[in-house]
């Protein structure tokens, strides 16, 4: 091997590139940028401002942070619902005024002051909510108007009553405690913010009203179509925001024991910047309370830090403006391009040098030499069927197959011209097998292992196995269950072909060629599913050996067949029995003469085999070309191969014309005939096998005769 090739092999097989794509599929990566910004901001100001982390300084900052966080949480909820609330600053100021006026002028107890504050917030929030939610005015203009009116009202009130508040001698321990005291070392505003944040977070992520808010923000029309009361939901987001601002206003009133002309000035810009910088989308539907809190900390640390460094209001506003612009740009670009980035980086090819195959070229004289025999097959269901991956026959000779519409179709013996939908499953049924009681067991792509009783009742048997310790993608769920067979003790052995791609993207797995295929076993006795083998390159067909002591399974992208021992000295281990075939191995089934049929879903091409040794070329291919242009294995020509107990190739057949059976994914022998399926085909083939036992039925071979 050349040095360059060896380096490529190391580079692509040892560096786990695939993890980048897997991590990017996680929703929490949205938090990564704001979190990084948070760390950088805190670290920067913490290191350049002496005493930034000292206790007193922190106490004061955190009080302010608590109040600010309350406002941001309220605004976050409004933004999640698809709106915007510019009136938070004026509601905040008016509530503060209500509190001090009630407490100092009207000389009412603290709880009345709190209620007065909340009532103010509620009233303003309700006005906003009514105008925007029910009258459907534009959120931006409406809250701008309430902001201006609220601010004007506040200015009038503070001029008229400011001096009375200054001169009042009312005092209360409760009031002072709220404004100045700490509980367990933490100030009241921070406690309120924590409690509200937790409650809001739980409500948004775990409760019906919270989901409604997210749904409305994500898509009003879909939410409406789903039966959500869109207008009411929008209304309540503004009421909630008003209440949050009001609570914050009450807290600042207790802290300052008064209200001045500057209270709440510019708060709306600060809060908006915080919510957006934290990563909440302005478009609605995407975001969280945690993001709002991160934004709040970033903005507050930034503004306080700049003030303590001696910069004026102008600089401060400028920095906020720039921050907001950057955050909005990143938000929009990220939202728009995330899936593109994911598409481009998800496929992470590995290096593989395939063994030199024997030729399958017609006339090459090898046992694999293809012919045109399968083009003689008669067709069943031509034009009605789409995608019969596997086919099977019951004891009454009826024929069953899955379709890409998510159904199991039954064709009636003897001529198979009449058919019915035997069961509707929803996913793409792939492998099929009958158990001892005549239940049809099927591997359903992207769903799991299902059983269908003879009267058509569908039951899920298994959809998950144990998660492996090192997985980033959740590999507990079955991503591409492909084929199965059933042992005499009733245990169902089945394959899950890949952990990286969904069932309909199965062919993409060949480009990546990473070994993530598994062999699993489902035990009907206790309903458990266990992973037996892992790390194969697309595990596919499964077939019990005639003596039931072992099973065969195919590894498609390596063109191999393995044997897994169920009993005997090698029980629980696997060995490769046929390797380096010229075609990609698929389903395996028993033949009547004690041998086995195996399908080739496609043929190896020299250019694709070579590309497996050039992972960097494949990686660039996936990034620079649209998927339709990617180099694939040649899955336009398949075939049927028969091998015996000693793994000699007995027979090979194909349809080289490509008209009837370009790709073959399964075949089933039944009473002297071979039934042929293909996952991308529009028919089932029916082929008479010369010399085959005309009475042989797999159901009898597996489960004995039944009366």
């Amino acid at each position, binding site marked *: 091997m050349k040095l360059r090739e060896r380096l490529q092999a190391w580079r692509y097989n040892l560096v786990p590139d695939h993890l980048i794509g897997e991590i990017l599929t996680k929703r929490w990566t949205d938090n990564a940028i704001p979190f990084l910004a948070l760390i950088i901001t805190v670290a920067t100001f913490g290191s350049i401002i002496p005493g930034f982390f000292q206790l007193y300084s922190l106490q004061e900052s955190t009080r302010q942070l608590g109040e600010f966080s309350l406002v941001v949480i309220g605004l976050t909820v409004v933004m999640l619902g698809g709106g915007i609330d510019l009136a938070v600053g004026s509601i905040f100021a008016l509530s503060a005024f209500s509190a001090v006026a009630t407490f100092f002028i009207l000389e009412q107890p603290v709880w009345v002051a709190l209620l007065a504050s909340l009532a103010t917030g509620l009233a303003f929030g309700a006005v906003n909510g009514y105008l925007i939610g029910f009258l459907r005015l534009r959120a931006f203009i409406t809250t701008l108007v309430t902001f201006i009116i609220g601010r004007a009202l506040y200015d009038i009130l503070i001029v008229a009553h400011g001096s009375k508040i200054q001169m009042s001698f009312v005092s209360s321990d409760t009031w002072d405690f709220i404004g100045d005291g700490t509980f367990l070392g933490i100030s009241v505003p921070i406690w309120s913010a924590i409690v509200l944040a937790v409650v809001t977070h739980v409500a948004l992520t775990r409760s019906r009203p919270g989901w409604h808010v997210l749904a409305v923000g994500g898509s009003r029309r879909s939410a409406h179509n789903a039966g959500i009361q869109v207008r009411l939901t929008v209304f309540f987001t503004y009421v909630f925001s008003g209440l949050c601002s009001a609570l914050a206003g009450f807290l600042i009133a207790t802290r300052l024991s008064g209200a001045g002309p500057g209270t709440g000035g510019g708060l709306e810009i600060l809060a908006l910047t915080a919510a957006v910088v934290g990563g909440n989308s302005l478009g609605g539907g995407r975001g969280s309370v945690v993001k709002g809190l991160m934004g709040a900390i970033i903005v507050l640390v930034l503004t306080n830090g700049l003030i303590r460094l001696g910069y004026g209001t102008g600089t401060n506003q400028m920095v906020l403006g720039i921050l907001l612009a950057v955050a909005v740009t990143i938000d929009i670009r990220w939202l728009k391009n995330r899936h593109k980035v994911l598409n481009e980086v998800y496929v992470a090819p590995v290096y593989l040098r395939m063994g030199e195959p024997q030729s399958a070229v017609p006339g090459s004289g090898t046992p694999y030499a293809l012919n045109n025999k399968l083009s003689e097959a008669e067709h069943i269901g031509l034009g009605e069927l789409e995608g019969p991956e596997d086919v099977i026959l019951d004891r009454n000779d009826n024929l069953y197959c899955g379709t890409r519409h998510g159904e199991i179709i039954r064709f009636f013996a003897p001529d198979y011209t009449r058919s019915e939908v035997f069961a509707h499953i929803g996913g793409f049924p792939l492998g099929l097998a009958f158990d001892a009681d005549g239940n049809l067991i099927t591997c359903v792509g992207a769903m799991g292992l299902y059983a269908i009783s003879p009267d058509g009742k569908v039951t899920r048997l298994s959809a998950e196995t144990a998660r492996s310790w090192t997985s980033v993608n959740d590999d507990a769920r079955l991503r591409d269950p492909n084929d199965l067979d059933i042992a005499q003790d009733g245990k169902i052995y089945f394959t899950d072909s890949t952990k990286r791609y969904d069932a309909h993207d199965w062919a993409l797995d060949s480009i990546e060629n990473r070994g993530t295929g598994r062999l699993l076993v489902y035990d009907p006795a206790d309903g458990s599913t266990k992973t037996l083998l892992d790390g194969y390159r697309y595990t596919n067909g499964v077939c019990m050996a005639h003596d039931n002591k072992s099973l065969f399974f195919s590894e498609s992208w390596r063109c191999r067949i393995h044997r897994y021992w169920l009993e005997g000295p090698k029980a629980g281990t696997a060995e490769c029995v046929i390797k380096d075939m010229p075609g990609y191995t698929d389903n395996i089934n028993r033949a009547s003469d004690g041998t086995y049929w195996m399908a080739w879903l496609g043929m190896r091409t020299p250019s694709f085999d070579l590309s497996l040794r*050039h992972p960097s070329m494949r990686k660039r291919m996936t990034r620079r070309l649209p998927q339709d242009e990617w180099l694939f294995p040649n899955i336009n020509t398949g075939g049927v191969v028969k091998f015996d107990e000693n793994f000699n190739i007995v027979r090979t057949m194909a349809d080289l014309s490509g008209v009837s059976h370009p790709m073959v994914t399964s075949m089933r022998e039944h009473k002297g005939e071979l039934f042929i399926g293909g996952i*991308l085909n529009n028919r089932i083939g029916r082929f008479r096998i010369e010399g085959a036992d005309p009475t042989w039925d797999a159901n009898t071979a597996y489960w004995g005769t039944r009366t």
Partner: protein
Amino acid sequence: MIFDPILDLFRGKAITIPPLDGAFCANAGLDEAPVLAELPVADNLCQAAGTVYASSGPGLYRLGEGGERERVEGFAVPITALAADADGTLAVALDDGTLIEGGTPLPLPKGISCITALAYGEDGSLWLANGSEQHPPSAWVADLMEKNASGSVWRRKAGGAFERMARGLAWPYGVLPRSGDMAIVSESWRHRLVRVDAGGSDPVVKHLPGYPARLSPAADGGVLLSIFAPRNRLIELVLQEKHYRYDMMIEVPREYWIAPTLSSGRSFLEPLQCGGIRTMGVHKAWAPSRSYGMVVRLDEHLAPVASLHSRANGRRHGTTSAIEADGRLLVASKGGNCILAPEGL
């Protein structure tokens, strides 16, 4: 977007090709066209004194009105180009680099060994396209995959000797003398037509959606251009992938390369692209393909006007030559082994 140049470092620049649009709008014109004659590897067509000649491997055939073919002459190696002068004298070029005019081999200057096209001008001059210095015409695909640009165009004035008009061309594959001392030449590997005169060469038509082959005059003063293979984004990628390409040239048999070809889909050892997968019995016409058939009519200003196609699911691929003979359009499909007589273009 402004970040694209930075992101390109990580993700690579998308490979794009000209769309089949406007005058190149896809149709099934060639697949629906009647077959005038079945002729294996039918290649170059020309009309001499009212008779249509076609080359087919080493054989030279005369075509009758109704498509009857008669073998006129056979050579030891394949014919690579044909032309006839005003008197009906035939010039025949062979794969071993010999040029025979009126039955006698001509002495050629050093440097001509790969004659891909011949044409006589109105003034009796003979123009000759020499595809490459490294390869014979039959090894065109190797010349492309090596990204050579060593082709040249030569002219012999009536009674004179061959002189080189242009060099450094990437596989000149068609030549059409125009009035004066000028000719239009199709430069295949660069997907363009260039104008060659005493002053050298300049591109006149760029960004063709395929690999251009022979040029011939149309009665209305325009030009017929044959395009023998499509541009394909995977092939363009492979052309940029040096290590893969050289390994492929060493290890993979030539007919199974990821490269343009005259016909495709005939062996399971050929490369397959995702879009070419046969699904539910259908091979999509717009699937990416390594071979294609296309004849384009250009007007007198060389602007493309109309075209006939044989698409990915068709068989009349590898159209290397098209002529107008007595008002009738004839198209040789080298990959489809036939000569077509489409109704019109």
